[in-house]
Every structure is written in C-alpha cells, then in structure tokens.
C-alpha cells in the first residue's frame, strides 16, 4: 500500500474494447470526473462516455486556413502591385485570377499546419514522461490491452472504495499508480 499523498491514481486493465466502454460509462455514471481511458485503437464514443465530446480542432483549422488565405493573397498583392511591379505582357498589375492558385495552396498549407500543430498542442504532446509509463503492464496499452484510469485528484477518489469500484467492473487487474 502506498500512502495517499504518494498516489497518482488507480489503473484497471481490460482485454476487450466493449468491457472498457461499459466500464467507462459506469465510472462516469458513478460521478467520477477525472477519468482517462487508454486504448491501442481509436474507439468511437469512448471519449463521449467520459464526458469529452467537442474538440476545438475544427475551429483551429478554420482559423489557420483563413489566415493562410489572407496572407497568401496579400503577399501576392503587395509584391506585385506595390513593392515590385513588373509589366508582364501588358497584364494589369492586380491580376487577381492569376493569384488564385498560390492563394489556394497557402490556405491548404496553413490549415494543415494548424491541424497538426493544434492537435499536438491541445493534446499536450510531446510529453515523453508520464507516471503511467512506469507501470510495466501499461506497455500493452499501445498493443492489445485497454485501460481505465482514475486520478487521485478526483474529488470522489478514496483508496479503498475506488479500488472496490474498479474491481467490481471485472478487469484483468487493478494497479496502484504511484506519483513519480
């Protein structure tokens, strides 16, 4: 037994995705809120079962795309009309149809960059050290096992009752996770 102040949380291991989903729903229904679930594949509805349903990723991508579009167009406008005008075949300086290909490309580039960087930033990655990596069984979270984790920070967390609650969910194992 580790003392309460040394606890990071309690981990339950499952070998089946349906078992994990059912466990997640029961945990959320019991009132636990600082809960995380780990799986080697994306499971539809699992995040929603834990109370997490909307991400800000689409908004981030939209803002990135709009920024890229305006920046690309303004770059071309400023260089072609103001800063470095060139007479190419007598075409008007502000030849906007010719600006569209590059504008499209900068839109897609900035939107994609914001999708990737936004996803990583919102996920808090890269984060090479996490207390769960100290648990040997957790290595299978990226292979073929499923885990449910209740953090000690949860207001309903209490060592014996939480352990009893998790054991009632029929996991393969319940593991104490110490603070690193």
């Amino acid at each position: 037994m580790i003392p309460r102040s040394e606890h990071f949380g309690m981990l339950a291991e499952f070998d089946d995705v349906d078992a994990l989903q059912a466990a997640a729903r029961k945990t959320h229904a019991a009132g636990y809120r600082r809960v995380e679930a780990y799986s080697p594949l994306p499971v539809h509805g699992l995040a929603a079962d834990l109370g997490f349903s909307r991400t800000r990723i689409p908004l981030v991508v939209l803002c990135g795309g709009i920024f890229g579009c305006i920046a690309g167009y303004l770059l071309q406008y400023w260089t072609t009309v103001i800063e470095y005008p060139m007479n190419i075949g007598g075409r008007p300086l502000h030849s906007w149809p010719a600006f569209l290909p590059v504008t499209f490309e900068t839109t897609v580039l900035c939107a994609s960059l914001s999708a990737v960087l936004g996803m990583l930033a919102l996920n808090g990655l890269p984060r090479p050290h996490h207390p769960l990596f100290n648990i040997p069984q957790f290595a299978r979270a990226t292979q073929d096992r499923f885990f449910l984790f209740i953090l000690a920070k949860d207001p309903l967390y209490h060592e014996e009752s939480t352990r009893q609650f998790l054991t009632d969910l029929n996991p393969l194992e319940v593991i104490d996770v110490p603070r690193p």
Partner: protein
Amino acid sequence: MSTDEGQSEPILARGHSLGSITDKISSIVLVRNFEWGWLLGFAVGLSLLMLLLVSVTYLFVKGVGIWGLNVPVAWGFAIVNFVWWVGIGHAGTLISAILLLVKQEWRTSINRFAEAMTLFAVACAGLFPLLHLGRPGYFFFLVPFPNTMGMWPQFRSPLIWDFFAVGTYATVSLMFWYVGLIPDLATLRDRATKRVSRVIYGVFALGWRGSARHWKRYEDAYLLLAALATPLVISVHTIVSFDFAVGIVPGWHSTIFPPYFVAGAIYSGFAMVLTLAIPLRKFYDLEDFVTDRHLNNMAKVMLAAGLIVAYGYLVEIFTAWYSGHNFEIYMLENRIEGPYSFWYWMLIACNVAIPQLLWFRAVRGNVLMLFVLSLVINVGMWLERFIITIVSLHRDFLPSSWEIYQPTFWDWSTYLGTMGLFLSLLFIFIRVLPMISIFEMRELLEETESEAE
C-alpha cells in the same frame, strides 16, 4: 445474375486478433533476421543513387548542355520525369485521403506504404525543377522572401505556382504520413527491446499513450487533413498541367489538360502502388492484410482512370480536328506519322489497348499479370509525358525551327538515378517503419468483428 467474387472476399483474413496484427506487422521491423533479399534490393537502389550523384555533379560542373536539349526542344527529360514522378505520388494521397473520406475500408492496409511512396516520389520529382535550371544556384529566386536585391517572384507564372503547389504537397503529405505514424511509433517504442530503438522510436512517438481524449482530437485532425489533402491533390496536378496548358504551343494549349493530367496521375500512381504492393506482400507474407480483393479493387480504379485518360486522348484528337487550326491539325498528323510516331503508337498500346485486359476478372485475379500490367502502364504514362513535351516542341509554328530531339546518356542516367533514390528510401522505410498502419488494422478488425456479430 453473376456476383463479383471479389466482393465477398474479406479485406482482412479471418483468425486475427489485436495481438496477432500487432505482432505480425511490428515484427517485420523489430524481430526479423538479416535478409539477403532486402540487402540486394537496397544495394541496387544505392548503386543507382550513386549514378544519380555522378550525373548531378557532372551536370552542375558542365551545365545543361550535357543533356539532349536544343532549340526548339528546350524542355526535355527533366520536365517529363518531373511530371511522371509527381503523378505517381498522387495515388498515395488518393488512397490515404480520398478513400478515407468515402469510407472505403480496403484502403487500410495499403495506405501507409502508398503515402511513403508519395513522399519519396515527390522527393524525386522535386529534384528536376532544380536540376533543369540553367543556373541552379539561383533557384532561390522562386522563394518570396525579403532580400538585398529588393526582388520578388513573378506570381503570374505557372512555375511559381508549381513551387507553391509541390512545396505545399510535400509538406502536407509529410505531416499526414507522420501523424498517421505516431500511434504506431508508440507501439514500436513499447515493443522494442534494444535501448537505442526504444529511445529513437520514443522521441518520434512524442509520448503517445493512447488516451481517449487524445484519440478524439487525433481523429478530428486526421479527417480534416484528409479533407484538405483531397482538393490539394487535384490542385497540384492541375497546376502542373498549367505548366503546359498556359503556353500557346499546339498540343499544350487545351482546357482538357487539368482533368486529363489528374486522371493520368491516378492511373500511373495506382500502377506504381501495385508494382510495390505485389512484391512486398509476397516477400513479407502480408497476403492476410493486402488481400486479393485489394488487388482487384486497385485494378478497377486503374481501369477507370485509364478510361478517362483514353477519353483525354480522344478529346485531343477531336479538338485538333474541330479547331480547323492548321498548326493544331499538323501537331496531330505529326504524332501519328512523324519521326516519333512509333512512340505515339506504343503509348496508345500501353495506356489504352493493353490495359483493357483489366475488364476480365481472370486478369484482375492473376497477380503476375497485374504486376506486368502495372509496369506496362508506368512505361506508357512516361511515354505520354514524352509525347506531350517533346513532340509538341520539336515541330511547332515555324518549319525553319524544327529539330529532332535525342536524349543523351546523361538524360537516362539522371532518370535511372532518381529511381535509385526512390528505391533506397523505400528499402530504408521497409526496414525501420511499419509498412502497414497497425492501429488502423486494429480498428478494421474491431469493425469487421462487430459487423459479424
């Protein structure tokens, strides 16, 4: 009523579990012993890469005169090879992005190495615009940045559009591929036994744990990337076609070019995916994952793209005749009976006639025939770019400017050399990274199991 046998075959062979999928794919990287076959392939790739380095060095020392360029054919193999490689790259993105959006599950086992193929093909393609410059040291004139000359690029030029398009395409493909790899890198990190492997995979896995919240954001970002990559693919090869279509040379200045080029890219790209998939699945025992149904589907996509390309050829012939424009009509006559007519008819044979064999299920089910057909189509698509570029240039408006184009040794050595670059990168990829997307295969397993219940 006959049913297509291919439809009832599974896209993932029965009898697999999450563990066995993980084992099978990751053990290719982590566990398999040293293989002479891999070494032979890598050696061939590296030798050709050396040939490329020699060719490029000689080119930079002596200049583009070592190639067969002349007036009027001032654009030769460099552009032909550039378009060929970029076209091949597009199938990878089509498989990863477009097939994902239309929920074609059979994309799952082929998308990882198809995207890798895209990246390596774009790398090979990107060499040519740099190499074909008369003064390659000034390539940075294409980049818009504040400089001491107060100079900025000319944004109305298709070559600048190319720079942005291919640059964006390379960046987005790289990110799309890397993001798809993160969960698999975490798997390799957790399975590797040597400390060096664990550290390197760990660094690139960015600490991925498989948290459900992370997966949710990941899936959202991945879908959005796919949605962005789809118009990107179409726009990139459209812009490449503008290199030709914007000019007034007969045979180039046609509005069919953008869709014709995009269809051609899909055609040659799927042919290259088949050329790679068939040996890989044989030598690495992946028939459970890349099944006969996959090959069947890829053959059908190839056939469809080939028909659109054939339509493009018909439109070119029709427009040349319908225009009543004597230069356009002569362009057509020259293709059919001029000095390069043998290559034009080879092109029709390779791209239009022979691939019609794909209508037959027996041909689509015969792996060796599919492999040979994919090589034939790749050759045919190269010939198509050759015919478009060189045959239109060598005889255009003024007969006194007409000239015959002869490629030199260095034209061929540079081209073969880029194949060496492609092969070398591919063999390194097979050796250190999982060539099938492990987490997506796990997802597929769960989906097929829940459908069966």
